[in-house]
């Protein structure tokens, strides 16, 4: 059943991506639509390094780089808030996609990078969905544990307070800047992790794998699953990745199938926002 | 009685702020309304206006029960509200401010006060007709806000801290206008104010609240003698 297994692998990878987005959007309230760009940075880094250095080293470099880039992209939110930042974030996403496509000496351009080696660790190579699922599940569990600990820490409480009322936290003498930067960095680490796993699982990456639609898909996963909670970031990806497979069972004319699926995604977003904005297992947005 | 508030209990989500508030207001009379921050003054005014729904109690205006009506319906019957700030449309000129409100309320039966009346009542506005409201001083904006509240056929004006940010001479002038216009047009007013002396000077009636309950209700003379000032 490698269909089921590869579905599970992708769902775990997207869960890590959703956690990354959750940290920014749900936890500190930076509405980012450029998470796919960060995941892309992680994926390209690992793809380029995978054959050169051992897998864990490539992963480490990707994770650090992503943390840096994510902090850099989140910085404008300190200066411009709300809808302004959404547009800035859109802009960052488009710039990233253009770089992936046009910096072709490094990224392979629009044709992407093929034959990325599967991850190998202590002589054990994860080149099937079965073995990869072990790696991706461990990664997801680690990410969940990190998220859980972060939320329970005193630091997590400050972060929640910032989303509720930033000025009050500032007035209380807490370091808002440090809190925001730290959470962005953790979010970047998660994105790098997701990107590295994605590249080594698919063995192939190209710019559209990290474009605006992917950012919005991850956001949709987060929203449907439920923002601000751990469970939401996991339920969402598992559900939304399964949905197209379910829809395949419904008899519709093949020409309609594709737009219909996107149509249903849209309708789902509307329905959730109207009737259950906290998603399936989240808290009030 | 223009306004009767009977046993009003109201508040926000899961939090009752005022309990059992009752008072009456005669036509043309001004009620000074005092109390600490958080005593329930604003909540009372907002419940009369309709921005909050009462949990219990009733509000009557000119013999009609209005506490279940939506805000615009209450405005149509003569309730007016002057917020403590942002009482004007900053992107419109003085004339446009008055014009748009007057025209949207022109269909009311018995609309008595027109734009021209307001301009003659508040000559300061006449001089600034073409200015954008947002560019005017706080005092001028407060005058305009008061003017907007007068348009149509007001019966009862709820004034929330009208003196905030005004120079003392302007406060006296504004309060004088309020007194004069209310008397002339038989409009009643509730005046929430922390400039106690100035407010008392133009009031017929004083209401003091503490912790969501009315602790004093009587004429200004009696209020001056009472011991409720320890609350302030």
């Amino acid at each position, binding site marked *: 059943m490698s269909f089921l297994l590869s579905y599970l692998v992708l769902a775990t990878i997207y869960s890590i991506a959703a956690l990354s987005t959750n940290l920014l959007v749900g936890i500190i309230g930076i509405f980012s639509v450029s998470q796919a760009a960060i995941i892309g940075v992680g994926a390209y880094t690992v793809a380029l390094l995978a054959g050169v250095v051992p897998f864990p080293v490539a992963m480490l470099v990707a994770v650090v780089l992503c943390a840096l880039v994510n902090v850099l992209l989140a910085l404008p939110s300190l200066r411009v808030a709300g809808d302004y930042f959404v547009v800035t974030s859109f802009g960052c996403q488009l710039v990233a996609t253009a770089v992936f496509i046009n910096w072709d000496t490094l990224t392979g351009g629009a044709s992407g990078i093929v034959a990325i080696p599967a991850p190998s660790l202590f002589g054990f190579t994860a080149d099937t969905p079965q073995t990869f699922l072990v790696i991706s599940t461990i990664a997801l569990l680690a990410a969940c544990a990190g998220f859980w600990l972060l939320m329970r820490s005193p630091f997590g409480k400050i972060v929640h307070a910032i989303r509720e009322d930033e000025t009050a936290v500032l007035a209380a003498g807490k370091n808002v800047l440090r809190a925001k930067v730290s959470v962005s960095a953790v979010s970047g680490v998660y994105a790098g992790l997701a990107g590295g796993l994605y590249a080594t699982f698919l063995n192939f*990456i*190209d710019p559209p794998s990290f474009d605006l639609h992917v950012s919005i898909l991850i956001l949709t996963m987060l929203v449907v699953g439920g923002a601000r909670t751990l469970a939401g970031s996991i339920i969402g990806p598992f559900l939304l990745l399964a949905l*197209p497979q379910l829809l*395949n069972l419904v008899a519709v004319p*093949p020409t309609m199938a*594709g*737009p219909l699926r996107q149509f249903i995604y849209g309708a789902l977003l509307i329905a959730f926002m109207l009737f259950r904005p906290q998603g399936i297992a989240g808290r009030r947005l | 009685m223009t306004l009767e508030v009977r046993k009003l209990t109201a508040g926000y989500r899961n939090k009752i702020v005022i309990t059992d508030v009752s008072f009456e207001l005669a036509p043309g009379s001004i009620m000074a309304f005092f109390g600490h921050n958080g005593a329930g003054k604003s909540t009372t005014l907002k419940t009369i206006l309709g921005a909050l729904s009462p949990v219990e109690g009733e509000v009557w205006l000119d013999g009609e029960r209005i506490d279940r009506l939506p805000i615009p319906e209450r405005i149509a019957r003569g309730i007016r509200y002057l917020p403590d700030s942002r009482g004007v449309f900053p992107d419109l000129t003085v004339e446009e401010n008055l014009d748009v409100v007057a025209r949207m309320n022109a269909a009311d039966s018995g609309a008595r006060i027109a734009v021209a009346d307001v301009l003659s009542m508040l000559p300061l506005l006449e001089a600034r007709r073409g200015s954008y409201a947002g560019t005017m001083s706080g005092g001028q904006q407060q005058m305009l806000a008061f003017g907007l509240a007068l348009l149509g056929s007001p019966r009862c004006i709820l004034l929330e801290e009208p003196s905030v940010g005004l120079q003392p001479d302007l406060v006296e002038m504004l309060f004088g206008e309020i007194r004069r216009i209310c008397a002339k047009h038989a409009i009643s007013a509730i005046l929430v104010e922390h400039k106690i002396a100035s407010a008392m000077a133009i009031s017929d009636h004083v209401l003091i609240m503490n912790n969501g309950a009315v602790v004093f209700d009587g004429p200004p003379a009696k209020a001056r003698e009472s011991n409720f000032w320890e609350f302030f």
Partner: protein
Amino acid sequence: MPLRQLRSLAAAVAAAVVSALPGTLAHAQGQPEILIGALLPLTGPAAPVGLEQQQGVQFAVDRANAAGGIRGRKVKAIFEDSQAKPDVALLSFNRLADLENVPVIITAFSSVTLAIAPLATRKKVVLINPAAQSNKLENASPYLFNTIPLVKDETSAITNYLVNSLHKKTAAIVYENVAAGIDGRDDFKKAFEKLGGKVVAEEPVEFGLTNYRPTLLKVAAAKPDVAFIVITQGHPTFVEQAAQVPGFPVGAGTTFVNPLCCYAGSAGWYQSAIKSGIPPELEKEFNTRFGTKSMGFFAREYFNSTNVALKAIDHLLGKGQALNGENLRAAIFEVKKFGSDIANITFDKTNTAARGVDIQQYTADSRKILATEEAK
């Protein structure tokens, strides 16, 4: 969402699942259907192309069934949406391979095909690529068959003609900023410069956008002898806007630009074309079936490639062998020559078909063949 609504939603989903089940279970009884998979971009910006490809596949399947099926067995095409995205395609591939157990999958788009090629090798599923031309497809998988020459081969044919027969010395390149366009750009540049030509401008157009004017103006301003065009979408609009640009040079391209033909604005332009014919009665049948005006390049190639798969399956069943990917791969090499009204495709040791290439020139309402370079 109130519980009641949730429940009715769940009921609707369940009903849909149940109603679809008989269809998927049908082949479990009696003479089993022959299933072939097709992984096409049915949504997103690439959907117009995907839908045309889908019609081609469906047309071949319909005709096979109308003729009594393959050795008495009905054929069914199972379509999966790739959205032209590798990760979506990966899941769809696994669905087709694991759940439906198809021996062969017809693919589209270089990125998608490249992403699933390693899996196809591992799972022994034949991939047939009828239209993607990325050079990386050449050695992507022993199970991948390209029924179309890759971009470098076709490009060299038209480039030869431009330089040697038409004596063009300078060229500008207008390319779509996606894999196919970029490959085309690079291959043309390499081939053209090798023959002594000079590329004076390289200008991209964004996929899915329809304002070509700034690009066209810039190309015209470079005053090249010829403009090499690599776009896969929006051809009529492209010609229309090129005609509005004074001094726009004569255009040239490969099979991709087939639909540029036959407008006043593109009269005199050249293209190479993978030799592929279409009998008028077949095109008419296609048009009646799908309500189209012509059977486009993608429809033809996907129709033909589906027939390649069916013919190999027929060969396999004729030998009494089990229908699986491994046997099918061998069968394709055994059959070797797949002749049809549309094209003669030969797999001679390599996985990429050798096909003849025509050099055509357009008039305002038709095209004529100037030269033909036969398959080597």
